């Protein structure tokens, strides 16, 4: 595995020399490998979004820096534009940023700005729309005529169309219903698998994170306090709860049973996994066949 993104002493303070001075991100040192899916969790105001915005150079750190493919992205400000094509950022509530007359034009904004020829742009639009699960006939509609879930997908398609090496999504499933959420997560997962790119997914939903992340990054009061596999992170449920976070209900249940002496492994993340494990115990004891 090769390191794609690395931060060194990355820090950011808002409103320096004003009464509102606040250190949002403190000395974050992380390494993210090529092709990984990283789940990012943390309470509101923990610095997740500020951190994400520094990773694509949208915010300049007050201290420390970010290395992409070994190069300091802030060294030469002229290169930042290229960095943003490589690190695509989907904001919270991206549907609020749709602005063009048609969905097609909106999705094409990124690739057009990259200076791609019309033919290539067209190809990218169709590919991105497909990945995001947007039906072809929606492309010529006004983005404002779409449903909430469709708007969200159109906005995500706009970033995917730039074919970024790293795709950062800041709470992509917030406000969606369970079906919309499942569909979107499956699409992100399928996109990741077919492109092999790196994905950072910020979410308040521990169930979402447990489902698709290779590693989980936990932010607390501006610091990166954990970066490990979901199993290892969610096994520390007491610590997470003190940080205002929760573990998936199924993890909580199996951890409590384990503490009571039931022979279950640590860090069970899905209902299916819990079911298999419990069936194993019951079979051994002859309680079911």
């Amino acid at each position: 595995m090769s390191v794609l993104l690395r931060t060194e002493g990355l820090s950011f303070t808002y409103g320096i020399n004003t009464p509102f001075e606040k250190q949002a991100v403190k000395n974050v040192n992380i390494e993210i490998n090529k092709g990984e899916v990283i789940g990012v969790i943390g309470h509101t105001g923990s610095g997740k979004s500020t951190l994400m915005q520094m990773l694509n150079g949208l915010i300049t750190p007050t201290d420390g820096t970010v290395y992409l493919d070994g190069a300091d992205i802030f060294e030469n400000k002229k290169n930042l534009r290229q960095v943003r094509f490589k690190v695509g950022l989907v904001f919270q509530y991206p549907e609020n940023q749709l602005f063009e007359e048609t969905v097609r034009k909106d999705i094409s904004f990124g690739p057009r700005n990259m200076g791609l020829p019309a033919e290539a742009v067209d190809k990218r639009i169709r590919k991105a729309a497909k990945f995001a699960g947007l039906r072809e006939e929606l492309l010529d509609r006004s983005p404002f005529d779409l449903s909430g879930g469709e708007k969200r997908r159109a906005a995500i398609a706009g970033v995917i169309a730039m074919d970024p090496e790293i795709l950062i999504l800041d709470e992509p499933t917030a406000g969606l219903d369970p079906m919309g959420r499942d569909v979107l997560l499956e699409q992100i997962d399928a996109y990741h698998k077919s492109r092999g790119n790196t994905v950072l997914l910020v979410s308040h939903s521990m169930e979402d994170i447990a489902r698709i992340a290779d590693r989980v990054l936990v932010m607390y009061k501006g610091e990166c306090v954990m970066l490990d596999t979901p199993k290892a992170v969610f096994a520390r449920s007491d610590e997470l709860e003190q940080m205002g976070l929760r573990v998936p209900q199924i993890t909580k249940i199996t951890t409590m049973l384990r503490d009571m002496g039931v022979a279950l492994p640590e860090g069970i993340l899905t209902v299916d996994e819990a079911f298999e494990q419990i069936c194993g115990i019951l079979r051994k004891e002859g309680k079911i066949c």
Partner: protein
Amino acid sequence: MEFIQAENLTFYYEGEDEEQPNNVKLVLKGVSVSVRKGEFVAVIGHNGSGKSTLSKHMNAILLPTGGRMLVDGIDTNDEDRIYDVRRKVGLVLQNPDNQLVASIVEEDVAFGPENLGVEPSEIRRRVDSALKAVDMYDYRHHAPHKLSGGQKQRVAIAGILAMEPDCIVLDEPTAMLDPKGREEVISAITRLNREQSITVVLITHNMEEAVDCDRVIVMDSGKVLTEGTPVEVFSQVERLRRHKLDVPQATELCSMLRGVGLSFKELPLSTDECVRMLSEVLL
């Protein structure tokens, strides 16, 4: 006693298909539900299932196309009494940032009663008691935009409380909050229901929020799919799954175990219940 009563309610948005009047899309297709005084009811369903539209009928923001909606016996179609309806039922929306109007928390909470022409001394009393009820009294002199999401949403609820409604309808009040903010808001609502007997209608996607209420109504494609106590509703694991709705993981696990031969009297909804039931089998 029924406080809110929808009788064969139908609704469509006008102007969508003016040229093809036969092609209108019904958002509500004959919904009959009721909410008793003092009850805590959760309404769940997908986007587009009609649950928000139903909630907007409860304080006469929308008026029925067909059928009727009674609030404490008042027909919401009665124009003369529309303000009575709105005074009885307060609505809290998803995004707290869209609902706060003043630059100081207590002024924001006072906005409603001021508009109702309440006496200043009475406003003071109501604002204090509303802020205490949602545990935000210590923040009364703060600026709303500096609060966390959960705190903002509780201020929005206090603003509704200060108008002393009989019923509060909340349309996905926790969808934009982190887990801690979510719990703060849900426990504030639960307390209002238990201690002040305020009727609560909670519209939510989060099944874990629905498990502690008195009754669950499940909406699907403009109709009521099923309703009952949380245990009755969530025990229909297969049916809810078929409609792509979530069930609590505790319930799902025990339903799967029941499928391989374990017998449970009823399925658990909460973490603690599930642990208790499984420990009896496994230890």
